[in-house]
């Protein structure tokens, strides 16, 4: 990569502090991406700091204040956009990270900040023992049969936001204007809900039999489906889904920008993109061929799936309000 001379650290040595998701995401990313990277660049060390949500990552970066630690952040693009606006992240170009060239145009950041690194979408988690056939409609969540066996993560989590939009869509409402109908419908869902903040998480809950239905991300769902020998199933109902898009960003005050760029470049390489897709079923953001059995299970990015487009910038402005309405009308209602 084309490094600048202004810092002492060279592109191929030093350390990189990455902030990213916790749990299984971290584990798989470690084995699929980070470990091979470290093998390739033995003089670079990587410190991975894990967070449960993107907001928490952003909060942590903000909290770093005058003592910047993070070099690279992998987080939901709606949250990272807010970070971009606040100047927390730096613009990156092909000059810095050559592999940006491979990223599909629609997955590049319009303002020149870090591109998407992987895509996923919200899906419906279900217990294949109780429900043998993959459900085709989100409506099943409202089914009394499963009262007390449904888990939905409430906003500010992205999943909760997504469900709000999906519900609006189902009811023929324009969620960019109003979510009244959606909220009303979701309030009807509330009695079915076992937990709005499941511990352990929604995937484990279905596997352990604590719950039967849930809202989850395709990638993890696929992964846990394997882990549980198919007890956990995941489906994309016909009414549509919402992408969960992870961007990779360089911290504006990154203490180690050079090795960080090297890492970003590697993260966008074919090798890493395929490896992570195989490991955790994240759809690549670059043009790369996946093995068929993997391609089958990652979220489709070819337009074959009905996907609701939520503009991250706009979402940032409503997420507070939506969270509020959930608290008041869905959870508290």
């Amino acid at each position, binding site marked *: 990569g084309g490094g600048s001379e202004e810092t002492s650290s060279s592109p191929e040595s030093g350390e990189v502090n990455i902030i990213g998701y916790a749990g299984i995401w971290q584990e798989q990313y470690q084995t699929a991406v980070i470990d091979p990277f470290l093998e390739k660049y033995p003089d670079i060390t990587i410190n991975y700091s894990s967070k449960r949500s993107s907001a928490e990552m952003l909060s942590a970066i903000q909290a770093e204040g005058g003592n910047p630690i993070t070099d690279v952040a992998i987080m939901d693009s709606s949250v990272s956009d807010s970070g971009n606006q606040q100047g927390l992240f730096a613009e990156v170009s092909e000059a810095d990270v050559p592999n940006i060239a491979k990223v599909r145009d629609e997955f590049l950041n319009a303002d020149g900040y870090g591109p998407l690194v992987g895509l996923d979408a919200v899906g419906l988690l279900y217990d294949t023992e109780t429900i043998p056939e993959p459900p085709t409609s989100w409506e099943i969540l409202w089914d009394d049969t499963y009262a007390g066996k449904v888990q939905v993560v409430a906003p500010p989590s992205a999943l909760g936001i997504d469900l709000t939009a999906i519900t609006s869509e189902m009811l023929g409402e324009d969620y960019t204007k109003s979510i009244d109908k959606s909220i009303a419908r979701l309030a009807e869902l509330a009695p079915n809900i076992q937990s709005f903040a499941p511990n352990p998480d929604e995937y484990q809950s279905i596997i352990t039999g604590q719950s039967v239905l849930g809202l989850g991300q395709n990638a993890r769902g696929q992964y846990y489906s394997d882990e549980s020998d198919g007890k956990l199933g995941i489906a994309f109902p016909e009414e549509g889904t919402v992408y969960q898009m992870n961007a990779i960003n360089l911290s504006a005050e990154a203490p180690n920008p050079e090795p960080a760029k090297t890492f970003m470049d590697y993260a966008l390489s074919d090798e890493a993109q395929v490896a992570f897709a195989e490991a955790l079923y994240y759809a690549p953001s670059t043009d790369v061929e996946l093995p068929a059995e993997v391609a089958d299970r990652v979220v489709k990015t070819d337009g074959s799936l009905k996907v609701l487009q939520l503009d991250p910038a706009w979402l940032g402005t409503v*997420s507070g309000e939506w969270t509020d309405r959930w608290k008041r009308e869905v959870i*508290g209602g």
Partner: protein
Amino acid sequence: MSATQTIASVRGTGPHREQGEQERRTRRRSRLTALTLVVPGLIGLAVSFVFPLAYMIRMAFNEGSGNGIVVETFTFQTILEPLTDAYYWQVTVDTFLMGLVVGVLCIVVSYPIALFLARTQSKWSGVLLAMALAPLLTSSVVRTYGWMVLLNDDGLVNSSLLGVGLIDAPIPMANNMTGVIIGLVEIFMPYAILAMMSGFGRISTQLEEAAGSLGANRAKVFFRITFPLSLPGVLTAFLLVFVLSISTFVTPRLLGGGVVQVLATEIYDQATGLLNWPFASALAIILLVLFGTVVAVYQALAKKLGGMS
């Protein structure tokens, strides 16, 4: 009378003497020493306590719009927002009620243990005391985790009840206020036990014996003597538990299933979920005020009760 003689002084005449020179000097020196001794502590607390609180309070007068964007200004808007919002009133009331219920239940289950420990003459009393306090030394995260295992729908409690056939469907004890309250009650029991034990220690068993010799049976002795005299300790324990339970957020978060909305979880959500720091600060101030009120009420009550024992 030899050389050793005494002049018995005549009392009360002559002008009133000023404080002695030496006395003044000593006092000055002692003040200086005292100052040197407390200053490091004051600095420590200033850094770790006063500044953060002051800064937090200042933050509540800024405007925040989520995702960490803070508008430096001076406005009452942020503080007024939760105060004019029925939802936050509800959260505040719920927080208060939760503290109240946890406090009362915690006293109820801790009282027998405290009384027992204060009075037992068993040679195991040391062990029993250690058993009562050991949980205190275990992170509340760990104990909450224990409760998750116990209270879940397929946790020990529900599975045994189902097993014996006492119930047909699991009682929902986790992911709701019930679970949080059960967890908090247990987690704060050691505090309550400690606070009450020191109170019981001060009640002379002779009072109970005196009541017995005057014809009171065991129940009467308890209700007329032991219990009234233990009230100050009970009150202290209650305050402690109340205060701790409305400020904790680990347990409501892990056991509350997202349904339990109290000030502590709201603050956490606002601060780390929505990154609206001014608003989080505003909520923190509400929590502080709630606190202050309860402490003030406690002190008034304690004065009244203190005048009694």
